[in-house]
């Protein structure tokens, strides 16, 4: 299967990363106020997940790591060349793996689903696919 043009992949990645920054920022701001994100569809899933110890890693809200990851992915999407192609792939792979772990925790340990976390996991999955296609198809080639 022929990969889409690199410009198309970069455009998709730019959109996804920007959206991801928005989602992660909302979660971080909601948490910093002592509350929790509001599940749009109702229920206490977002609250339960935000209250859980898994919402923090080494004392830092996971959403902060998410913002940092999305910012790097956005920068990689905006830049040309092999370095952004490879760094974008590495960050998207790590983000995708971490999202899988968090989704597993929500389903089998915390017993609650946060829609915002699911949205972020979905975005990260799409970013992983986009960045993987970009690296495999275009690394080592002229920008």
């Amino acid at each position: 299967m022929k990969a889409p043009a690199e410009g198309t992949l970069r455009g998709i990645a730019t959109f996804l990363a920007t959206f991801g920054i928005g989602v992660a920022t909302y979660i971080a701001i909601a948490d910093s106020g002592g509350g929790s994100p509001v599940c749009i569809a109702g229920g206490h899933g977002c609250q339960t997940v935000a209250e859980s110890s898994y919402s923090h890693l080494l004392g830092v809200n996971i959403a902060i790591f998410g913002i940092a990851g999305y910012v790097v992915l956005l920068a990689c999407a905006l830049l040309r060349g092999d370095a952004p192609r490879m760094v974008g792939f590495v960050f998207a792979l790590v983000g995708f793996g971490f999202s899988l772990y968090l989704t597993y925790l929500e389903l089998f340990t915390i017993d609650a689903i946060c829609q915002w976390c699911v949205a972020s996991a979905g975005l990260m999955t799409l970013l992983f696919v986009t960045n993987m296609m970009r690296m495999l198809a275009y690394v080592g080639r002229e920008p």
Partner: protein
Amino acid sequence: MSGRSGREARREERPYEDGRAGAAERRRRLIQLGSAAGFLGLLAVAVVVVVSGSQSSGGDPGKISGAQTVNTLLAGIPQKGLVLGEPSAKVTLLEFGDLQCPFCKGFSEDVLPQLIEGQVRHGEAKLDFNNYTIIGAQSTPAGAAAVAAGEQERGWNFVELFYRNQGAENSGYVTDAFLTAIAKGAGVPKIAKWNAERKSKRVLSEVAATTAEAEELGFTGTPSYAVGGRGTAGIETLGTPDSAEDLETAISGAG
């Protein structure tokens, strides 16, 4: 003549083919490098997750600790049910917490001691713990055990000792053995009575009722606080304050 021109043509193509082979080789190496870096990145995150997880101990009925600290903190302060403090105190500070909640544990250890040693011990306010079971199914038996301990005037000892030995939420640590170990550590005098009451419909209903009350007050997280006193119009919600000073200010304002 034609053989010679063929050789020349092949000689001219060789650098081009060498260049293509070199570019393919470079691409292959870059992809290998990217894959290896991605693998290492995943490994690094896994290590951080494992290290972070190993820092949260607790939930072991054989290793209950902190009873002395809790007993010293609460010594000499009257308790009735899950209310800590002089019954005549003008201000009531209501806490809505979940015994499985790690933030509540943080508040219990870092924020409340200042308040208990100050305004509660001096009779200016009383602290009323209410279960707001939002973390998971194990929050209810934990909360019911605290209510039952409160009926023997050891409710706050139970709550505080539970927080100091809290395990990872919904990990299955809230067992009969763990709750019994906490009750014994908290100094609940009649364990058999406590054991029967914590499973009673009456006590379980009380846990459900305070959870419903928290929702009616509009709380969205734990721990959440509300204050009642002469300076308030009924119950005023505070949400989750940032510090003990914020709670002290709210109590002073309500008095």
